[in-house]
């Protein structure tokens, strides 16, 4: 006697087949999906501190210095050049800003706009920043320029990763 909520033979077979089939499909696809999403699961590589310039060469006016870092891009290892805008602030502390615009990633330049000689200027969409990296309201960027982690050793400035202010 079949009651109302009894499972019919057909339903039972449907459920078991779907279950077993789903289990097999998952067993097949899971490794592949995890394989594919590996880049978002990997921790970012730590970046070593690299010597950039003698502290004595740093002025009150921002100067652009370049330095090389080791980059590991999957199976490809190479040296890439990075740049920093470095100056001494009023208290004599060293500031090292990343030149990467916080709008959409173009490269900013100090005093590149004749109308704004004391600001960083981005040529792509006219983004501007104060000397300390603060973004100027009314221009496209929504955040201040990143600052490099820094360290002074034996009269030399070492820079590491650029982090948001």
């Amino acid at each position, binding site marked *: 006697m079949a009651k109302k909520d009894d499972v019919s033979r057909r339903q039972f077979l449907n459920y078991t087949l779907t279950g077993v089939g789903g289990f097999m499909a998952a067993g097949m696809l899971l490794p592949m999906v995890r394989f594919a999403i590996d880049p978002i*699961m990997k921790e970012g590589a730590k970046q070593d501190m690299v010597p950039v310039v003698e502290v004595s060469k740093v002025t009150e006016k921002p100067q652009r210095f370049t330095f090389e870092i080791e980059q590991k891009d999957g199976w490809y290892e190479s040296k890439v050049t990075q740049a920093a805008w470095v100056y001494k602030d009023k208290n004599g502390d060293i500031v090292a800003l990343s030149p990467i615009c916080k709008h959409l990633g173009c490269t900013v330049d100090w005093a590149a706009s004749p109308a704004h000689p004391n600001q960083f200027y981005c040529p792509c969409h006219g983004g501007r920043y104060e000397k300390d990296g603060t973004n100027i309201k009314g221009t496209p960027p929504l955040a201040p320029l990143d600052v490099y982690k820094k360290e002074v050793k034996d009269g030399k400035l070492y820079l590491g990763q650029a982090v948001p202010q």
Partner: protein
Amino acid sequence: MLQKMYDWVDERLDITPMWRDIADHEVPEHVNPAHHFSAFVYCFGGLTFFITVIQILSGMFLSMYYVPDIINAYESVYYLQNEVAFGVIVRGMHHWGASLVIVMMFLHTLRVFFQGAYKKPRELNWVVGVMIFGVMLGLGFTGYLLPWDMKALFATKVGLEIAQTVPVIGPALKTLLAGDATIIGAQTLTRFFAIHVFFLPGALLGLMGAHFIMIRKQGISGPL
């Protein structure tokens, strides 16, 4: 919910007859292992297809990391196997599946042969099956070079020498495959890659489509 979505589409496009035509048909008693255990021999065709699906899927995922370039190929395979999560498993599926698919295809062929299932009216499906066999061997041959290690290089050297022994067109055939008359190198690798992941899988899908349409049309051969 699912039923509602299905009904919504079905009301507009009348899809029920379409999938009925593909999926809803009787499995004759003589091919059902629940009735006669020896009917498991009828599974080999389906198993060949199943492993082919695994090959295509795992191959698509492998090519997210693999580069067909003589400087980076080996490094990229090393990286995807040893530094990407589940790399050993995904490469392992493709590696072992490549051999297993040949085994399954061979068993399937034996069943068709010994049952005489290739006889009229199914001759054309035998012909298509032989073409699938050729495409599979081609996939195995071209894929074997891709990791660009010593085993890959020398296996391909030998394979190309064999191609060269074909009467009349041999030398031209070898150059066409290798991309150069004497070197097995950069151009060979890119060619083999293109053949392995685009040309042969494309041909394989077309042939398998023909294979299955013919089976659907003619039905499975009768009991012995």
